[in-house]
């Protein structure tokens, strides 16, 4: 185990644990952004430059922002009074521990676990671009379609149902409909202001 790996691992684990345990949702969101950043560092350390930078761009730049916006839109910025954990948290913890035990056992007994990395790995942007445009062109198109569908879907789901009554026309045409503000038609008179 090398020092950079240890630092990155501790950063990821600490930030992820903080994200899952902090009471304040905004703190959670910021901690998970740190965790995503740590993962990006891990990718960079593993010579996957393009993926690491994409990770920062997408997760820190977009997903974390999306999460804090969602927190603010659902008024979750305040720390809750009650416990933040669900009523059935003990079952969740048991399931998690068994899952982790299974994963760790299989990882530790895997034949590939002590493998050393290949000496020189070239994953230049050019290679990735070429691969995306030749071998992986179909998945790329599908992803494009998926993103478009997700964009439209997210907008439609989150859009407020607007009744035609509350729909505002732009201010200019509203002003022209001879709707003079009442304060101008009925100026406050000295006799009490009420007609």
């Amino acid at each position, binding site marked *: 185990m090398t020092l950079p790996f240890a630092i990155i691992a501790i950063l990821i684990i600490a930030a992820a644990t903080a994200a899952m345990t902090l009471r304040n949702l905004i703190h959670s969101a910021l901690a998970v952004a740190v965790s995503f950043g740590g993962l990006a560092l891990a990718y960079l350390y593993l010579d996957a430059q393009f993926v690491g930078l994409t990770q920062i761009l997408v997760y820190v730049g977009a997903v974390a922002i999306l*999460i804090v916006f969602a927190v603010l839109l*659902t008024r979750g910025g305040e720390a809750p009074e009650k416990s*933040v954990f669900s009523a059935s948290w003990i079952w969740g913890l048991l399931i998690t521990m068994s*899952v982790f035990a299974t*994963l*760790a056992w299989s990882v530790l007994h895997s034949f590939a676990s002590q493998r050393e990395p*290949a000496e020189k790995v070239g994953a230049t942007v050019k290679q990735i671009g070429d691969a995306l445009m030749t071998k992986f062109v179909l998945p790329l198109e599908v992803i494009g379609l998926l993103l478009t569908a997700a964009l439209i879907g997210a907008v439609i789901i989150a859009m407020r149902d607007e009744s035609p009554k509350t729909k505002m026309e732009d201010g200019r045409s509203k002003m022209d409909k001879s709707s003079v503000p009442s304060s101008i038609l009925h100026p406050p008179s000295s006799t009490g202001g009420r007609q």
Partner: protein
Amino acid sequence: MTPLVGYLLLSAFLFAIGLAGALTRRNAIIVLIGIELMLNAANLNFIAFWRYGENPEVLTGIMFVIFAIAVAAAEAAVGLALIIAIYRHYKTTNLDEVNTLKG
């Protein structure tokens, strides 16, 4: 260099943290964050396997991660939109209280 087992254990631990968060927290947004962490743990696995694999020049691991990031971004957008819609309806994001279907 760190052997592959280091990355795999890190990834497993991250997955466990995300799973624990998703299963135990009340707030829907935190549950979504936990799911994102699980997805990221899987991505770390892909990158580690690509880097330590037999023939890294094929770039399959990297491609998988790029697509997974795109899918995760779409998932986050739709998921958060759903949470906002749920909040509009129930005026809460507490998953223990959103249980109308339970009957």
